[in-house]
């Protein structure tokens, strides 16, 4: 562009620098010999994820691994959703994101598929939150917020569990649920326990009883009565309100092995809120969890979760999304319930000496959120030598429900299509029962096959406590 073409109002067109000095003289020529490439951009210190986009080499591993892209032609897949959208954002705060990000089920499989370390789930969670905060209030948004804040409705329902169970699975009510709120009428609401885990725990005598049980167990096992074996239990919402038998199994197994347990006050882990783009809600709960569970960590407790999505949230999503004092400590001290036993006890040996003749054989589905933590095969390995139960792996397919995803009327078909492969493999397995660590996978497994689904902790309970 010659000088005469420059606007005469004194401004410079975008992308052009005002000419400085004589342009005919190449500025760098004399310095070319000494040219030393240096890092031009400083390491980013804020939460700007655009730099993560630069790691993408476009191999498409993420798209090939994505269960939603596999069945839904309208979904552009994680490569677009993550690095490509972020690359196009000019301003990390203000740009809007394509609404297809709401079709992502937050299974997080793209994280592990990527050979280059693109922070996919962090990008999705952040993009979703920005998209949702820009959305106007709608029935769908209210529905999503209701689903995401499952803990609040569960809390209410647990006050009147029988009434809630009857009302929510009452045909006309489900029809209205779908028509008005967009909650699929195909799904049966999970039953609320008549006694929540926390009620059971309190009635049983709380921490004091746990110490007594642990000390007695240590004596039986020939360990020091004051052995340093103490864990804080993050039960999450589902094991508290819907499947307290899983939480009770955790308590009995750990106490049997000499651990004293505390059950700190806790909120939701945040998983359903991440998936629906309500990061503010998730942060509120995270603050509560970091404060209460963190206090136990300071007392020397490690944190145990029995739900794979809860442990995933505390370990990975918390430090990725929030800057809360103590959040790194919580992440670094949280363990999956089975994983912790594998590290601290010779659990495989104990199980090899035990027997669970009363239990049926099971078809096992590894939840995506276990898979992402490298835990997809631990339940298979643990029960390899346990007498009386055969565990058949149903492969690496996704169950398709992904928490609240499969509850939405418009996502129900996608969810069931994703789950098809798992259902087929379950039915092909030599078992009429199922097993998994994740409560919503468990729902989907039951919904698709009619099988009863158990948690690995219940199997260990049968082997080591009841046996």
């Amino acid at each position, binding site marked *: 562009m010659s000088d005469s073409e420059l606007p005469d109002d004194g401004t410079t067109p975008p992308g052009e620098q005002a000419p400085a000095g004589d342009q005919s003289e190449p500025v760098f020529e004399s310095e070319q010999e000494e040219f030393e490439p240096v890092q031009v951009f400083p390491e980013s210190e804020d939460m700007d994820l655009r730099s993560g986009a630069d790691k993408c080499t476009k*191999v*498409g*591993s993420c*798209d*090939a*691994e994505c269960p939603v*892209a*596999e069945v839904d*032609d*309208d979904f*552009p*897949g994680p490569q677009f959703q993550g690095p490509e959208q972020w690359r196009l954002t000019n301003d990390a705060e203000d740009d809007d994101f394509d609404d297809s990000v709401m079709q992502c089920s937050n299974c997080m499989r793209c994280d*592990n*598929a*990527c*050979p280059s370390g693109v922070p996919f789930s962090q990008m999705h969670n952040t993009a979703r939150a920005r998209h949702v905060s820009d959305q106007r209030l709608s029935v769908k948004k209210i529905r999503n917020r209701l689903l995401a804040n499952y803990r609040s409705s569960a809390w209410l329902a647990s006050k009147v569990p029988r009434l809630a169970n009857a009302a929510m699975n009452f045909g006309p009510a489900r029809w209205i649920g779908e028509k008005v709120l967009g909650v699929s009428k195909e799904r049966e609401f999970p039953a609320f326990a008549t006694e929540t885990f926390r009620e059971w725990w309190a009635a049983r005598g709380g921490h004091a009883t746990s110490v007594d049980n642990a000390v007695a167990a240590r004596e039986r096992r020939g360990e020091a009565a004051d052995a340093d074996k103490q864990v804080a239990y993050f039960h999450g919402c589902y094991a508290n309100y819907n499947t307290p038998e899983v939480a009770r199994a955790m308590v009995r197994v750990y106490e049997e092995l000499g651990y004293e347990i505390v059950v700190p006050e806790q909120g939701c882990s945040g998983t359903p809120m991440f998936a629906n783009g309500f990061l503010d809600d998730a942060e509120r709960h995270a603050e509560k969890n970091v404060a209460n569970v963190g206090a136990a960590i300071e007392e020397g407790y490690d944190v145990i979760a029995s739900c794979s999505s809860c442990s*995933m949230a505390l*370990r*990975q999503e918390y*430090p990725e999304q929030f800057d809360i004092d103590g959040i790194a400590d919580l*992440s*670094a*001290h*949280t*363990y999956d319930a089975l*994983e912790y036993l*594998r*590290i*601290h*006890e*010779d659990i495989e040996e104990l199980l090899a000496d035990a027997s669970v003749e009363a239990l049926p054989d099971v078809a096992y589905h590894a939840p995506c959120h276990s*898979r*992402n*933590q*490298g*835990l*997809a*095969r*631990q339940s298979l*390995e643990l029960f390899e030598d346990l007498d009386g139960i055969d565990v058949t792996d149903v492969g690496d397919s996704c169950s398709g429900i992904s928490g609240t995803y499969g509850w939405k009327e418009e996502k129900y078909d996608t969810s069931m299509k994703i789950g098809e492969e798992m259902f087929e493999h379950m039915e092909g397995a030599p078992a009429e029962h199922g097993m998994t660590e994740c409560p919503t996978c468990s729902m989907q497994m039951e919904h698709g096959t009619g099988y009863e689904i158990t948690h690995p902790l219940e199997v260990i309970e049968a082997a080591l406590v009841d046996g």
Partner: protein
Amino acid sequence: MAIEQDVLVIGGGIAGLTAAISAAREGASVRLVSYKETTLRHASGLIDLLGYTPDGEGPLEDPYDALETLPADHPYRLLGEARVREGMATFDEITGDRYRGEHTDANALVPTFGGTVKPTARYPAGAAAGLASDPRSTLFVGIERVPDFEPSIAADRLAAVGVPFDTSAATVEFPIPLRDDAKKTRFAHLLDANETVDGAGEGVRRALAETVKPHLGDAERVGFPAILGQDHPAEVRDDLASALGADVFEVPMGPPNLPGLRLESLLYDALEAAGGRFEVGSPVVSYSADGEVIEQVAIDRSGQEIPMTAEQYVLATGGLESDGIGATREQVTEPLFDCHVPQPADRYDWFEDDVFGDHAFARFGVDVAADLRPQTADGDPEFGNLRAAGGVVGNYDYAAQKCGSGVSIATGHGAGQRAAEDATQ
């Protein structure tokens, strides 16, 4: 307490998988840990042994004849021909009839999606009908919405390099409409299931054959981009072939590549069948040693360091492109155990100005002895119980010599077998 096994293999590529399978077959308890899903899915699925000499001579007709021409520190020379053959025999045994080429020492010439011809020692059964040495006339078929295969380019370039057959090309619509740029796995899964085509009342395999038929002409074989099924490729090929009345083969593609994905499941299944354990999703981040014996390593599982211990360790973390070898402006390192990596002191000597020159960086890696233990600059073992295999090993240029899979298999098998022997003694 740590999670215990006899042999711990670090890395889930072809070298790590071969090491783990060989160790498990020796009767050792084995665990393989892989940071991410294996990069085998980005690989061609072809098993190269040696295609070119370090001087660029080739394509080589017989890779074994050329082993002698390699430098003395090349992994093949360290192992010796018998060990290299043993590795390949193990691979043949694992893959059975799903891989071909074991009937001869000679390299096969496989057409690539870019229309070049690649010398390779073993190829998937799906590529068998497509060999460039075969004189039968060939139609290359592209699929709309699979943008990484342009059949006319492949056909023209193959004709230009003088293959002994006529080539033709056609691009057809896939009978089931998918979005633009749909992943190759989607096509594969529809063909696996032989999904019914709307309105036609027939399966997608036959429908695809029908769309290709008008372009067939005199062609005696038809090459498709490698999308012909993930779980049942032989069935898909057979159905297409019988509907077309011509042989059918697949051209290996860029990532994600179905032949690579199939090889991945084949090797993981073999590891499971041999009793080996594995976990994907967590990197090994640190170790502790007592003198020259590694006692324990730790994996980082979303924030926690989880201890793992073994008698013997196999390092199979890959080369520069896989972060098994790391580099800063000052230094090239092996980041996990800090094994010695030979390198020119001045980093301007790490590369040549000629793009396709004989770059030193292409040979960066740990310096192994004949027993595959990485050695210090003085030639002593770095650790008594550590061996290395695959891309992390130095002194060979897999890209120029076309020897990547062969070195991975030979060193993987050697390292796994020796580790198991030492661990169970």
